[in-house]
């Protein structure tokens, strides 16, 4: 391995594998280095890969019975919780039944491994079949820099590899991005969250009947309110083939301030009467946790490229939760694709300096990834205020309880119910201000 490589990809998750797929297709030789024993061994996600980029990377993937996704999503639900109640906005449509699907649920240890197999197939078919490979059980310890320029990596065991450029796809705990000086070595908790999750197995027929699934259709349900015991964040429940992904995303600074244990909040969420009804009879087969970015752009590295360097996926803190969906894996996929396209161009031009690699920034700015992150920053901050995860769910559930109570007496009109509910939980003026801010930011 004395020869200089064209490209080293650090990390075999979705961002790294997506970059690898494009490089294989474009006949650019590369080595992908993953510290796990297989792709997905170290990865945790909530569980939905949104959008149709997967169809671009693996055309017609849905025709393969063995494809690594769990279920396609045709049923969305956003649920507000108080201690007893659940008030949901629910949308299901056969419009979402046709491929390419708008979202698929995934389990990363299964999905990433399948995607890595697809990348290996692409390598085998390419002219670089002898040069490109996926290396497992290898940790990149540090970047090798020469005057601010990344020229290679040093791996566990001390071996050094040199390359024209390095694509970092190391995930949210981006130690190498920090070493490159693109992010402070200490990243505070303020714009970070921690996800905790359980995989709950149940009989497939029970699961399909309980959630009204047919074939490979699935549901994605997000929760705000009592799910988090007053801590900033929310809950989720996604249907997999014969398991559920059930968990929470909790604002880390708020968790610290409120002195709460994440797995105890998970107990509270799971024992909510409405959630417990969905989980009954299931068996927990895995407990996991991972840091996740909140989607606040203040957490992004100072720059996402440098001389000989490109940063993709959550290493660049690419994530968005603006109330509609938690998007991270699609951003990882898209940024990986754009980084690889830039590397292919750089190779053509024979220049891997920042002058050429800045095209990655330009591509990402023009793509849905950074346009959406920029357009919805107000929404991200709006959703992280206590009124949204405390007051609003209480108002919704209290309204639901009053509205759906039918008694044998004269009943108040809806506007009177609404007025009384709002007065019980907040001030009407505050509610109007909140509505105005919601209108502006969402």
């Amino acid at each position: 391995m004395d020869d200089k490589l064209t490209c080293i990809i650090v990390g075999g998750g979705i961002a790294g594998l997506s970059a690898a797929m494009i490089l294989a297709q474009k006949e650019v030789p590369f080595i992908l280095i993953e510290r796990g024993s297989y792709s997905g061994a170290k990865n945790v996600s909530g569980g939905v890969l949104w959008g149709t980029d997967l169809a671009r990377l693996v055309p017609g993937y849905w025709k393969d019975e063995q494809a690594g996704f769990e279920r396609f999503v045709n049923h969305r639900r956003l649920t507000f919780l108080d201690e007893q109640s659940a008030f949901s906005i629910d949308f299901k449509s056969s419009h979402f039944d046709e491929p390419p699907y708008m979202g698929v649920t995934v389990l990363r240890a299964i999905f990433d491994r399948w995607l890595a197999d697809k990348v290996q197939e692409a390598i085998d078919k390419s002219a670089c079949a002898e040069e490109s490979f996926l290396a497992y059980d290898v940790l990149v310890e540090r970047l090798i820099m020469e005057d601010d320029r990344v020229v290679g990596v040093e791996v566990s065991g001390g071996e050094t590899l040199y390359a024209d450029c390095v694509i970092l796809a190391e995930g949210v705990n981006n130690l190498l991005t920090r070493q490159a000086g693109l992010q402070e070595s200490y990243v505070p908790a303020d714009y970070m969250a921690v996800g905790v999750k359980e995989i709950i197995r149940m009989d497939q027929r029970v699961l399909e009947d309980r959630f009204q699934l047919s074939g490979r259709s699935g549901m994605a349900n997000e929760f705000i309110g009592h799910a988090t015991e007053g801590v900033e964040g929310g809950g989720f429940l996604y249907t997999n083939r014969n398991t559920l992904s059930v968990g929470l995303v909790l604002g880390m600074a708020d968790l610290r301030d409120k002195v709460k244990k994440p797995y105890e909040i998970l107990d509270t969420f799971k024992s909510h009467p409405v959630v417990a009804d969905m989980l009954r009879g299931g068996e927990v087969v895995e407990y996991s946790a991972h840091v996740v970015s909140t989607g606040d752009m203040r957490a992004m590295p100072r720059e996402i490229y440098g001389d000989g360097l490109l940063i993709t996926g959550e290493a660049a803190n690419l994530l968005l939760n603006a109330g509609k969906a938690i998007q991270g894996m699609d951003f990882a996929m898209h940024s990986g694709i754009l980084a690889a396209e830039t590397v292919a161009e750089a190779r053509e031009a024979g220049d891997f300096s920042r002058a050429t690699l800045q095209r990655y920034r330009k591509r990402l700015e023009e793509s849905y990834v950074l346009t959406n992150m920029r357009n919805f920053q107000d929404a991200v901050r709006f959703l992280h205020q206590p009124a949204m995860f405390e007051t609003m769910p209480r108002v919704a559930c209290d309204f639901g309880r009053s509205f759906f109570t039918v008694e044998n007496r004269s009943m108040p009109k809806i506007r009177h119910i609404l007025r009384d509910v709002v007065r019980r939980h907040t001030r009407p003026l505050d509610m109007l201000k909140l509505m105005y801010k919601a209108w502006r930011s969402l």
Partner: protein
Amino acid sequence: MKKLSIADRLGLVNYRNQGRSQVKPHILVNTDICNSVCPHKCTTYVCPANCYTLDEEGRVHFQFEDCIECGTCMYACDQGAVDWHYPDPEVGRGVNWNYG
């Protein structure tokens, strides 16, 4: 559903190098900082794997064996006590997710 303790939950996690007698720690914690100047000792409650515990005297102790590499302590500790690295694939600990 039956309520699971954190020990039950960690019992479901598949760790690397479980049979190895000598395992190299991947996180170094200067608990002198935790036990002298830290006002909150937050790792003892925010860590999802309960790797940081308090003894009867309220002193912080850290063990890396149950760590699931989530990264929480690296951000939550604002006192500079946590020196966080990824585990070495050969001689470190760390996770192998079955589902992820």
